[in-house]
């Protein structure tokens, strides 16, 4: 057991070697089992099948590093899709509609941050409440019906290609690079690590924690909104059923990518590997023809395994002293 622990520790210590190795292994297995796995066509299907989660995972990475969580993303996604759908039915034009819808999404993120800052509600309960309400409002607005009939220009967002690459994939790649650059290299975004890693240190070094929280939750909601708009364009419709359970998959990607729910740890690079890992598994379901409803079982299991592994390693790392119960019961 000891040797297993040290091996695991070594693997996880330097970046995401364990995860990357798993992705590589999975890729080898998949391409042996399904010769078409490594074809461009299938890679595109894999990527497009997971693009919403990938986008949201970028924002969620910030949230989780800051020590929070955002359960509202799965509701912001359909909500934004519906808002943009309704706006497109007016004479507003495609781009203004998108801008307004994204603005609404950001506003929802601000409301999350407001509740956490002012009401001092735990992030998970604040965003859970937002999610419940948004789903309700979405149902009220649409009365459960699907909105469809959008202009061609909007259709292009989800279906267009630049140099043969689907537009959503390009959007993701650009944003992923931007997020990675900012989080790794920008002094403002370094604050996110301080807030999640050592709140007291953050305060001592003069970080405006509350203000930063608006930015973080705003970004997370913006990404969910973007995912909503892309989904609406892909399906050429908007429905309250979009994005169901996507929050689970998003959080799982981020955690598998090495972020810690207690904050202060995680990276965009790791999250991207986590997203790829989950995307391949989701493709495995498609390829094998296994019932897709197995997916959530597998994802839930992986989330548990990832968290368990992290806690196990951390427990090994600390002294054999009585650990404060309070510390973990009140975290999250």
């Amino acid at each position, binding site marked *: 057991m000891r040797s297993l622990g040290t091996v695991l520790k070594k693997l996880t210590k330097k970046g995401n070697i364990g995860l990357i190795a798993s992705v590589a292994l999975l890729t080898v297995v998949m391409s042996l089992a399904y010769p078409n796995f490594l074809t461009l066509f299938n890679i595109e299907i894999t990527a497009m099948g997971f693009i919403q989660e990938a986008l949201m995972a970028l924002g969620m990475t910030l949230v989780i590093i800051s020590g929070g969580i955002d359960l509202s993303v799965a509701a912001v996604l359909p909500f934004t899709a519906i808002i943009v759908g309704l706006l497109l039915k007016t004479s507003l034009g495609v781009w203004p509609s998108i801008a307004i819808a994204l603005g609404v999404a950001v506003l929802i993120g601000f409301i999350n941050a407001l509740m956490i800052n002012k009401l001092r509600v735990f992030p998970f309960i604040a965003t859970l409440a937002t999610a419940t309400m948004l789903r309700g409002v979405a149902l009220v607005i649409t009365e459960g019906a699907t909105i469809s009939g959008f202009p061609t220009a909007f259709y292009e967002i989800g279906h267009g290609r630049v140099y043969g690459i689907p537009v959503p994939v390009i959007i993701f790649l650009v944003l992923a690079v931007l997020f990675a*650059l900012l989080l790794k*290299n*920008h*002094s*403002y975004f*370094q*604050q996110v*690590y*301080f807030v999640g*890693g*050592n709140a*007291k*240190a953050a305060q*001592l*070094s*003069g*970080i405006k924690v509350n203000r930063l929280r608006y930015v973080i939750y705003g970004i997370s909601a913006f990404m969910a909104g973007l995912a909503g708009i892309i989904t609406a364009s892909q399906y050429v419709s908007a429905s309250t059923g979009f994005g169901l359970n996507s929050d689970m998959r998003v959080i799982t990607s981020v955690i598998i990518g090495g972020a810690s729910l207690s904050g*202060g*740890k995680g990276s965009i690079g790791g999250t991207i590997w986590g997203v790829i890992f989950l995307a391949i598994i989701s493709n495995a379901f498609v390829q094998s023809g296994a019932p897709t409803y197995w997916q959530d079982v597998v994802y839930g299991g992986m989330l548990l395994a990832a968290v368990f592994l992290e806690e196990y390693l951390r427990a090994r790392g600390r002294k*054999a*002293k*009585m650990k404060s119960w*309070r510390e973990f019961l009140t975290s999250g």
Partner: protein
Amino acid sequence: MVASVLKIKGISKSFGVHKVLHDIDLEIAKGEVHALIGENGAGKSTLMKIIGGIHRPDTGSIEVDGESVAFSNPQAAMAKGISLVHQELSLVPNLSIAQNVFSQREPTNWLGFVKWDELHKRTRELMERLGVDIDPATMVAELSVGIRQLVEIAKALSMDAKILVLDEPTSALSEKEVETLYRIVDDLKAAGVSIIFISHKLPEVFRISDRISVLRDGRMIGTVKAEDTDTDEIIHMMVGRSIEEMYPPRASSVGETVLSVEGLSRGDELSDLSFELKKGEILGFAGLVGSGRTETARAIFGADPVDAGTITLHGRTVKFKSALDAINHGVCYLTEDRKDLGLFLTKNVRTNIVSSSLKKFASQLGLLQHSGIEDTAKYYVQHVKLRPADDKPLVMNLSGGNQQKALLAKWLCADPQVLIVDEPTRGVDVGAKTEIHSHLRQLANSGVGVIVISSELPEILGLCDRVAVFNEGRITAVLDGEGTTQEDVMKYATM
């Protein structure tokens, strides 16, 4: 004498009704190492937090380089060249050394992106100045406590600190690391940096400091040159207060041994501790913070594991696996941390009093007798003279003294045969203190073995029949309470 870089005049500070600093004056010269010492609760940390901009003084003035300043936050103090190296380190483990050293002040381009080459170069220079050759990109999580401390110092230096406050910097360091730290302090001093050095350990104070200031009970007792004084004088300044409180009479006779501990050891925290506790006596545990007193108590109580050692209770060897186990055997422990580990702050007095003896109020089926709980709680409220004399108020709304009485009542209610009390009168007013002392003596007279852990020497000497002195995880002496002086105890505690 060189010009003062820092001049403090008439600083006072109260928290609520509790006045922790009285009219403090202090001057720090450029390039000197100035030790600030005093017992726990003497006000050292509060004074340093005021200097570092974390607290604001109620009255008084601070001058830096002859310029009057008022800090509204730590950043303002740093801007004036004052940096605090905290006891609890303020680093983020999953960021690199460089990111921590220059947090919020990274060299960036016009877009706000960090210039890594420059950041790493500057960090490397700082670390080299401290005599450490290490990759600035190393994660702090991978560093030892000693190196982390150096990173904190590097952080202070990166802000061009003129005054560096080191709060018990050696408490968690290995011997080798301590030597490195001394050398760094000497180097910094040579470079013109003033250092305020807070410590409990007198030998090291004499080793590195130019001048020594002693605080006691929130008052500045005096500042002396290190070369003009000696340990005895400093100890006298630290503990100089006369035993003004009245203590109950000591035990006239003690019974057989209730508890004996043999060879208790754990890592480097506890090494081969042995002692005996007799029926009806009060045994004191004296020593500095971190000398192993609390750790010993928790180990006996079954709250923490031990590597070796036997505990004998009433002649039978016992090994408690949990607090419940210990309580069932009549061994109880009143924690020093009453807010986090002792009381249920958001619950009322009644709930708190019965919290460690709930099972006593339950029938065989486990059903609670609420009337019994109420009567018992009311009895103890009277017994320990709680104010208000009511079992309904939430404990968080009580004063410190009354909270401590409620905590004592909780353990009296558990009907102990051995009671270990850890800092039983910390943050308690004189009246409540005397009452707590008389309860402890009463308890001993009724045949209970009592162990009192206290950082207040007058309390230890006034109350206890015998005193075990702890020093770095060992018991260095067991003295009689009667006739022993504070200086004697201090000698064994700091040698």
